[in-house]
């Protein structure tokens, strides 16, 4: 048994013993059933087709502490965007931190899933685990077996939540390897609308693992906009599994932004369950060092007249590795489907690599589907044109690459967040280009001696 599996099994046992009042509830049954599944599967290896390019051996060989009390103070957490105009829910080591959390909108139920279980037990039992099954999925099973906390968001019919809702997961990895397994449930009634930002931040240099699972139930004509901010330290692993279940005429837009971390795996799926629903999945990854970023998406067109659009753009430098796998299913009934998918990559170094794979399975005959993927270098002609106008090489590169990334970040609704991410990308590009130039000089120096 891997050390990770051991950690999770131990944590399960320990937290089972402390369940108290929840013993005869659906919550407990979910956990118990998930643990049965968890016990019967192993964490995936590269022999598993869905994990072909991601080596998890360094992640699963660690033991991790879970749900440990942390002494972190508010000012230990690195600056992010101004949150005064946001609804904020903060978790530290998986535990809800009410004194750092605050809501400004009154027409939304947004609270700790655990705390919500009293009043909202019926809804939670109805949905948790329904769309992301623990069966045959070690990470989802581990998350459900250790079901403890996360965010429960419920928006009533016809309600528009005005301000963004930020879910901040902080991990204290200063003393020991730390694991959190947030479990989120978003339930949007018909014509409801909400915008969510999810961010994970590790503090400290010990390994951290965030195994997040999120299920979103998007009602008739409801709208969900969700931005994932994945900019963590180099010892952080993020396994993020999300599903949107969409009713008629609903619209979802998920924008993932991956800027750093050791390993980031996003498995994001949407089921367009009723007609005229619309799903957008966008992603930008701008990574260097030895970061591995893997985006797996599933667009499941189950009914007619639905529209899906995917745009993933990557800038890959250093020894980083990016993976994109985009599945589109168009079921037999799903006539008049429109489905577009595009993955474009710029590779900046000889040691960086990209694996991209579109996977379309179409069983209906009256559909429009297109996909395309490219892996290339920066356009030399464009670079020269900018330089010929006086813009230095590093800046010209950054300008072109930022423009490349902005096609994705332009979909981020919150201006302050969009500029924060754009600025991060620009700063990273300038810094890497300065480092590369310095290295280049070193090589030259060696060669001339």
């Amino acid at each position, binding site marked *: 048994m891997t050390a990770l599996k051991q950690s999770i099994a131990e944590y399960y046992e320990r937290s089972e013993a402390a369940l108290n009042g929840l013993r005869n509830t659906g919550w407990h049954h979910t956990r118990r059933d998930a643990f049965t599944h968890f016990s019967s599967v192993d964490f995936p290896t590269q022999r598993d087709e869905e994990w072909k390019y991601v080596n998890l051996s360094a992640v699963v060989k660690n033991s991790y502490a879970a749900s440990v009390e942390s002494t972190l103070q508010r000012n230990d957490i690195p600056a992010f965007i101004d949150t005064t105009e946001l609804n904020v829910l903060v978790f530290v080591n998986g535990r809800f931190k009410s004194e750092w959390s605050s809501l400004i909108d009154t027409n939304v139920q947004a609270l700790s899933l655990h705390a919500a279980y009293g009043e909202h037990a019926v809804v939670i039992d109805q949905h948790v685990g329904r769309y992301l099954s623990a069966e045959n999925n070690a990470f989802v099973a581990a998350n459900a077996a250790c079901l403890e906390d996360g965010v429960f968001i419920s928006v009533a019919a016809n309600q528009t939540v005005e301000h963004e809702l930020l879910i901040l997961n902080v991990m204290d990895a200063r003393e020991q390897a730390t694991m959190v397994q947030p479990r989120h449930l978003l339930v949007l009634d018909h014509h409801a609308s909400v915008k969510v930002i999810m961010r994970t931040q590790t503090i400290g240099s010990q390994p951290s693992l965030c195994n997040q699972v999120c299920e979103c139930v998007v009602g008739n004509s409801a709208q969900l906009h969700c931005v994932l901010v994945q900019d963590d330290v180099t010892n952080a692993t993020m396994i993020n599994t999300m599903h949107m279940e969409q009713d008629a005429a609903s619209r979802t837009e998920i924008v993932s932004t991956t800027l750093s971390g050791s390993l980031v795996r996003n498995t994001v799926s949407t089921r367009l369950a009723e007609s005229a629903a619309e799903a957008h999945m966008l992603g930008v990854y701008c990574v260097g060092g030895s970061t591995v970023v893997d985006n797996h998406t599933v667009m499941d067109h189950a009914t007619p007249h639905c529209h899906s659009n995917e745009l993933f753009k990557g800038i890959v430098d250093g020894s980083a590795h990016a993976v994109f796998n985009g599945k589109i299913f168009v079921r037999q009934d799903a006539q008049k489907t429109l489905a577009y998918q595009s993955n474009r990559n710029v590779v900046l170094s000889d040691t960086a690599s990209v694996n991209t794979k579109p996977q379309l399975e179409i069983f209906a005959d009256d559909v429009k589907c297109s996909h395309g993927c490219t892996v290339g270098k920066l356009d030399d002609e464009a670079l020269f044109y*900018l*330089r*010929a*106008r*006086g*813009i*230095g090489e590093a800046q*010209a590169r950054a300008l*072109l690459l930022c*423009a490349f990334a902005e096609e994705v970040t332009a979909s981020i609704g919150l201006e302050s967040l969009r500029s924060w991410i754009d600025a991060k990308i620009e700063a990273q590009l300038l810094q890497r280009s300065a480092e590369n130039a310095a290295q280049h000089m070193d090589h030259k120096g060696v060669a001339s001696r």
Partner: protein
Amino acid sequence: MSAMLEIRDLRATVEDKEILKGISLSVNPGEVHAIMGPNGSGKSTLASVLSGRQDYEVTGGQVLYKGIDLLELSPEDRAREGVFVAFQYPVEIPGVSTANFLKTAVNEVRKHRGLNALDAMEFLKVMKQRASLVEMDPAFFSRSLNEGFSGGEKKRNEIFQMAMLEPSLSILDETDSGLDIDALKIVSHGVNSLKSKDNATIVITHYQRLLDYIIPDVVHVLVKGKIVMSGPKELALELEAKGYDWVKEEATA
């Protein structure tokens, strides 16, 4: 008076083929020089070599610009020192707005010249004023650079950039190609209004018609990588009337 640009016996190859076979040329401040020649004579190669494009290898000769060795400078440093090449085929750059691009370029050039960066308001004012020189609609500022621009709009945009960067030496590479007569007049008007006693212009063209509007002081004829004849502006008319064959004959005679 020392020359602004002094080209001495310049030789250049592309993919091991010699294109420029010893060009010598001297351009003084305040002057307009036209370089004419048939297709394949090396006109655009000359512009490319002067702009610092890396596909060309300089195999001999020297280019002095204001007394400094131009060929030693990176493309960006040439631009910062005041050399501007209006390209024959301006590149389309999706996602980079004309305004953002120019603001970055102008401020880099200003920094190099020891001037303060322009703030957003000043910059917009200058942009509007210079855009009017080539009758360019300010709506273009927020559009991606050259993306979806017509041929004429791209050329006007080149001259607009020239107006913004205030170069000492401007090299117009086939700026007339693909322009109708109205666009030609607009572009020429732009170039003429930027002329001064302190700056110089090299107009590279295949046809004489641009020189009806931008009057050259000297016309050079480039054939097979060499300047075979230089003369006053009337030479352009003679070339228009007689074609290039007689020059080639005289050159080989």
